[in-house]
């Protein structure tokens, strides 16, 4: 299911660079220091772990919900386990990783707060990317169309969507407060996967960012 979601995200060809890597994954990879220990939650087909391993020399592990995704990853030699962000993070000890990454998966977990807290418990840093439900096109569809939005990023009808916890960029900042997460870096991406201006105000990101990537650390 998450694999499918990720696959859909890759359909926007403009969001890929010349070697075919997804811009949002490259952005996530860019937030990780070389050689770090990384856990990728929702590893999909392993593309992010591959990028991290090949380009950042990262010691990467993954969790993936779909059996197909896991088997594909393991057959590629990646250390990925079949599991679930909601139930399996509890088994990892504190500070097991330098970075715990949740890429395009937050909206599909049952308890986003618990997941984020676990991420910041087992990792010194968390990287979270998610589709922004505050984007103007989504607001238009809901506000004027009167329908649950459907976009390239979020192509599902509401009754079959794996996405059960949508949030806007502003909403995510609230979660960070509640979960005691400190924002180290935040980037909003437009529909082409290109970063929006760094100095733009939050309301601008919340309106024009199709997705956002946050680098977080533990507060205090």
């Amino acid at each position, binding site marked *: 299911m998450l694999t499918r979601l990720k696959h859909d995200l890759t359909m926007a060809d403009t969001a890929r660079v010349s070697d075919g890597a997804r811009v949002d994954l490259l952005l996530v990879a860019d937030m990780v220091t070389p050689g770090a220990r990384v856990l990728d939650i929702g590893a999909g087909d392993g593309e992010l772990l591959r990028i991290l391993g090949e380009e950042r020399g990262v010691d990467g*592990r993954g969790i993936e919900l779909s059996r197909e995704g896991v*088997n594909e990853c*393991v*057959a590629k*030699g990646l*250390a990925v386990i079949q599991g679930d962000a909601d139930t*399996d993070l509890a*088994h990892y*000890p504190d500070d097991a990783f330098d970075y715990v990454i949740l890429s395009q998966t937050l909206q599909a977990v049952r308890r986003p707060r618990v997941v984020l807290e676990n991420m910041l418990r087992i990792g010194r840093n968390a990287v979270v990317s998610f589709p922004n439900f505050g984007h103007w096109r989504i607001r238009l569809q809901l506000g004027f169309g009167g329908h649950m939005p459907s976009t390239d990023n979020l192509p599902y009808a509401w009754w079959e969507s794996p996405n059960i916890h949508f949030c806007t960029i502003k909403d995510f900042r609230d979660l960070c407060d509640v979960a005691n997460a400190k924002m180290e870096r935040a980037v909003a991406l437009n529909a082409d996967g290109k970063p929006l201006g760094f100095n733009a105000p939050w309301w601008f990101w919340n309106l024009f960012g199709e997705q956002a990537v946050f680098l977080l650390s533990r507060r205090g």
Partner: protein
Amino acid sequence: MGDVETAASSALRAGEADAPRNSHVAHFGPDRPLKLDAGVELSPFQIAYKTYGTLNADRSNAVLICHALTGDHHAASPNPVTGKPGWWVTMVGPGKPIDTERYFVISSNVIGSCMGSTGPASTNPQTGQPWGLDFPVITVRDMVHAQAMLLDFLNIDTLFAVAGGSMGGMQVLQWAASFPKRVFCALPLACATRHSAQNIAFHEVGRQAVMADPEWRHGRYFVEGTEPRRGLAVARMGAHITYLSDAALHRKFGRRFQDRENPTFSFDADFEVESYLRHQGSSFVERFDANSYLYLTRAMDYFDLAADHGGAVANAFRGSDTRFCVVSFTSDWLFPTSESRAIVHALNASGGRVSFAEIVTDKGHDAFLLDEPELFAITRGFLDGAAKVRGLKNGA
């Protein structure tokens, strides 16, 4: 079944236990005893083994194959007793996932077995007769310690990989726990960190079937010229069911009758599935020793990694650099996925590097021995990835 036939197959196996055909045998004299968990020493003893492929100059490409309960060391070459192909020819061989053109594969028979490593069917040098129940009770850890002595004998310090399913998977986990520095990567398939109550219960039924056979004679059947064929066959029939699945049995046999149109209203083998099980039982008796069956089932029952490591499996793997690939099968109800997941959680908790995949199949526990393309792809990918890190070249 006449006495002549009984005596013949019995003698055949006695010969196999002491002098296995088509096998290498490593002898360990009085200077190198095996210290057993039971608190006694086994000495002298021997280990039967096969090797496939070539050891590289660095001695870094060795892969140890661990067999299951009634398996043996003939993993990738014909079995001299049955004449059938090796039990893991799908997995081990030139170009196979465990590629003998790249790896030096060592496949050894566990102690306690009857196929050439010292066990209850072997001749006790003290008496000149088979050990029978005088053989000490052994554990999975004893099997692994014996294998470690075999590696010393072969002058191999570190294994590139240890792989096996079921009881073989238990040995893999024990290897990683006992000798983490000697195991670069580990492939425990369809197994668990401990034998469950249900599994112990199944084993007990099998042992009781053997021991209830009047021909068993308290394990002295070798000496008394008898053989507990019926008991061992029933034990195998019961066990065999646990290796399959409801769906697989239904797919293979359904409720079809065996060579007849209608039920006979008797206790003959009316159904195909009955006939099949009877065949499984009687052919097993031809190749396996009843006392060995008791000892090896016992060894599996005693297996409990957590108990050996302060109550937590994670302790068994703490600080280990071994790379793990755990595999389970959806229809395996003997070692269900939850057991493999427990291994994975323990490895996560200890900071271990682990891959874990569950494969969809209706073939039950035995799936690890069968044609499962996904298992082959996963094994190949995992070993390739590890070989790259280990610096093993293609073609050794």
